[in-house]
């Protein structure tokens, strides 16, 4: 069954943290019982708040526990936005390091999970820009460059021929959906991933993306319409 919240019980970092506490950790006792965790990304706010407070005081195991609680969700958000697993892992690392660096600035106005999500969205955006820049600087095919008469290399951009579409049709639906998500503009992609993949509420998406709720609805409508058109184009039918 799909775990949509990223807070699975089999969380080694949390167990390590509890062991640390039981073995005489010097900090105040922090209870991380499963009872405190509700549903969705909103859950475990109390436990997060306590861990964040401990981490802000320099308690690295507390931060490690936070990493353990959120890393799967963060990797998944990054993966759906970048469309590449390795990039997603890099983005997740950068996001957590950035979160640690700016942890003192976190005042608890928003939930830690919301704050962390906004960081990973920014990191993913930056990564996409880098990838786009890299691709724009490499317009020629590296494996089989074709020299023109004047000696310049002939551009070999990604093909959009029907055969490519046929290959796409052979892929499974998962791949097609991910391709369609990757084809969306960044603002629509972020709204779609947060709402339809991660299950965030509209107001929380507004906080993460720093836009009004009306804007979130509008972006979501356009993202879903674009996804529908894309899937129909790739699969022929829904």
């Amino acid at each position: 069954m799909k775990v949509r919240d990223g807070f699975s019980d089999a969380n080694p970092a949390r167990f390590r943290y509890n062991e640390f506490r039981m073995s005489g950790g010097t900090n105040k006792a922090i209870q991380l019982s499963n009872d405190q965790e509700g549903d969705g990304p909103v859950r475990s706010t109390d436990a997060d708040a306590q861990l964040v407070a401990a981490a802000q005081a320099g308690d690295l195991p507390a931060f490690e526990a936070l990493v353990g609680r959120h890393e799967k969700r963060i990797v998944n958000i990054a993966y759906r936005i970048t469309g590449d697993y390795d990039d997603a892992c890099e983005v997740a690392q950068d996001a957590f390091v950035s979160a640690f660096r700016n942890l003192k600035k976190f005042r608890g106005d928003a939930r830690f999970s919301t704050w962390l999500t906004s960081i990973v969205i920014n990191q993913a955006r930056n990564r996409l820009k880098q990838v786009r820049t890299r691709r724009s600087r490499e317009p020629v095919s590296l494996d089989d460059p074709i020299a023109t008469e004047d000696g310049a290399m002939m551009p070999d951009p990604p093909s959009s021929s029907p055969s490519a579409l046929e290959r796409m049709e052979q892929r499974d639906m998962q791949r097609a959906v991910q391709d369609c998500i990757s084809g969306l503009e960044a603002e629509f992609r972020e709204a779609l991933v947060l709402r339809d993949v991660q299950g965030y509420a509209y107001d929380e998406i507004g906080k993460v993306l720093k836009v009004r709720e009306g804007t979130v609805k509008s972006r979501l409508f356009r993202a879903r319409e674009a996804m529908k058109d894309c899937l129909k184009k790739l699969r022929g039918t829904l």
Partner: protein
Amino acid sequence: MSAMTHDDIRHKLSEYLDNAVTAEEMTAIGDHLASCTDCSDALDELRKTLAHVQSLEEVESPPWLTQKIMARVREEAEQKKSLFQRIFYPLAVKLPLQTVAVLFLVVTAYYVYQSMDRTMPYREAPKEYMQQEPLPAPRTEEEIGADKPADRSSAPPQTPEYKSLDMKYAYEPPPPPAPAEEAPSAAAPGRVMKREAEPEARVEGYAAAAKAPAPVAEEETH
């Protein structure tokens, strides 16, 4: 609320699926869907699209990710700590060292200032003396032979400008002019005034030098 048009409802279908519309809108959209096949088909497609998106499986994070993140975090924490230590730690050692250094600088500066104060007038006076008091030309042998101790005592006094350097003589009237001594003749060849004669006067102090006989050129003895 005004009645929703077909386009309005078409744009609200996304929110309708999320139950993010008001009760009034919900009723209006439901009524419209019952009569508009375009909108009901669109809603059906939208529902299927959402089902596909929501069916995306979650990926597992790599097992090394936490360790890698924490390694970078620890590195970050160490950097922060070392910067803090460089500036503030250990205060127990740095503060006394800095205090001693500051005291040393203050004491040194004070003594340098004091010694400058003492040496300043003496450093300036000889220059003035050398410039304003032309050295007498070397005397001939006859003049030396005819020179008597009485003559030495009646040597011309120093100029008032020179005396004014010493406060003791600052307001003293100038002494009566001594009998003019015979002007020394032009410098004879082979006779050079010895500069070593001057330090005597300097050692005794320029105050005393005012009443001292005029410098006498000694004959070179070789």
